[in-house]
Every structure is written in structure tokens, then in C-alpha cells.
């Protein structure tokens, strides 16, 4: 049971990481990255690190994501096309 849950989390982590990397819409990528951070926080809770889960949920999914979103609003949302 525990292993299955951990493996599910890991698969989710890899999938979200890949999606965040491959998405062409930067805002979408950042939101997926936020989901990645939240899953990471859950994973760390599973590894008995509640302090870090709290920190990652507040910092990784919260502050970092917002900083990214602000930066995207200040710049542009879509990745540029190949020349």
C-alpha cells in the first residue's frame, strides 16, 4: 500500500515535471510547476518531513509560483517560435 502510493506520487512528479518543461504556454507551465511543488510537498509529508512539506507548500507552490506569474505578466506569455 505504502509503496504503491509512493510510486503513484513519483509517477505524478515525473509527469508534471515533463509537462511543465514541455508546455508552450508559459503560464500553464508555471501552474503545472505549482502542482508539481504541491505533489512534492505531499511526498515529503509521506517521508515524515512535515516541516518541509509546510515550507514547500508555502514557498514552492505559493511564493515561487507567484513570482513566476508576476514575471510572466511583466514579459510575455507564449514561448517564441523557432526562427
Amino acid at each position, binding site marked *: 500500500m505504502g509503496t504503491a502510493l509512493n510510486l503513484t506520487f513519483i509517477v505524478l512528479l515525473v509527469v508534471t515535471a515533463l509537462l511543465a518543461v514541455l508546455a508552450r504556454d508559459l503560464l500553464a507551465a508555471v501552474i503545472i510547476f505549482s502542482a508539481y511543488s504541491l505533489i512534492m510537498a505531499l511526498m515529503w509529508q509521506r517521508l515524515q518531513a*512535515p*516541516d518541509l*512539506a*509546510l*515550507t514547500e507548500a*508555502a*514557498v514552492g507552490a*505559493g*511564493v515561487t509560483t*507567484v*513570482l513566476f506569474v*508576476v*514575471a510572466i505578466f*511583466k514579459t510575455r506569455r507564449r514561448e517564441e517560435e523557432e526562427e
Partner: protein
Amino acid sequence: MISLVFIAALFALLLYVVANMPPMGDPDNPTNSSEVIERYLEKGGEETHADNVVTGIIINYRGYDTMGEVTVIFCALAAVLAVLGRERRGRIYAYVDRSRVPSSVIVRTMVALLVPFIILFSVYTILHGEISPGGGFQGGAIVGGSMIVFTTIFGLLESSQRIPQRLRFPLEGSAVITFFAVGALGLAGGGNFLTFAWPEIAGNLQPSLVVWLTVLVETGIGLGGAMVLISILFSMIREEEEIAVVP
């Protein structure tokens, strides 16, 4: 193409390491069996007077790392301000505030109601750091997060009046300063820098003294961290073109 090959080679190398690493979760592997951990876990409670061993390590055993850590966030603030500059003072300048997101009354009311509770929760997180998960920086990040929500709904002008620059400015360095002050206090007691306890001086009061100092440092980190995060956010949100208006 070269970079792909490089990354593949690196991955293979790392897999090779992982295959040769001690099994995870085994009580006998070097990380879990060293005497370093034993002391932290068994004596941490009485030596640092923090039931949360992680807090004990952060504030007490490895306090110098944490002092470096708070210097890093201060450094990040100085760096961002050096690159982008501070937002203008709310009273003197007004600007075309484009940071607001159009929102309905419901959202505005809910946010206005929620933010105080989020801040209350963060205060709890900071002050309860030594007995439950959480601590200074987590609480600070939560305050920062709540101000972010507030800013997106009510705009930079409004929120920079709620937490004005002249309030943030003196508090931004509070984390480093409290840490240094507490560290120097240990020196004054005849110990080393960052010593929290002097049994011969404090006597029976020592446990509560350590707890109070821990809470003091946590509060400093929380306040400093929150203010730094908010200042960084404001600095990034601020618009370039500002128009001066008569107050």
C-alpha cells in the same frame, strides 16, 4: 545534441551511484546509524528545549547555517532592489495601477476576511515552531503569500499602503540582527558565538530562557522573511511609468 548525450551520460552515472548506495530506510545505513543523529534524537529535546528536533537543529545545533540562510534572503532582497529598484511610496506617487485583477464583490469580501486569519495562522506557525511543524520562515512565507493574494485583488497601491515602506524597511534585516544579537549574548555569557545556554548563570531559569530565545529568533526570522518576500514582490510588480499627483 551534445548536451543530450552529456545529460544521458550524467543520468547513467547517477544511476550507477544510486545502484551502489546504501539501501533507503535501512536503520543501519551510514546516515541513520551515525552518532550524530543519535544525539540529535535522544538528547535534542533536553539540550535545545525544542520538542521539534528539526527546529532544535535549525536554531540551535546548526544555528550558523540558519544565520547564513537569513543572510541569503536579505541578499536576495538587496539584489532585487539593486536590479529593479523599490516601488514608490504610496502617499506621494500614484500610478496607473495595473496590478489589480478585476474581481467581483464576493471575491473581494472573502479575501478581505481571510487575510487576517491567514496572518493569524502564520503567527501560530512562527510561535509554535519549537513544538510542532513550522517555524520562522514558514510563517513568514505564509504572511508573504497572504499579501500576494491581497495584492492581486486590491492592487499594489492599496497593499503598499497597508504595509508601507517605512514599516518594511526597518524590519527587513530583523532576522539577521536578532540572530547576531542572540549570538553575541551567548558570547557575553562566556560561551561561544551563538551559544544559547549558560547553566552556571541562568541556573533554574535556563530551560525557559532557551525557549524564549528560540521564540525570539523564530519571530525575527518570520518578520524579516515576510517583509523581504513582500518587498521583493512589490519591487517586481511595480510599474515603470508613474505619475505624480497632488495628494
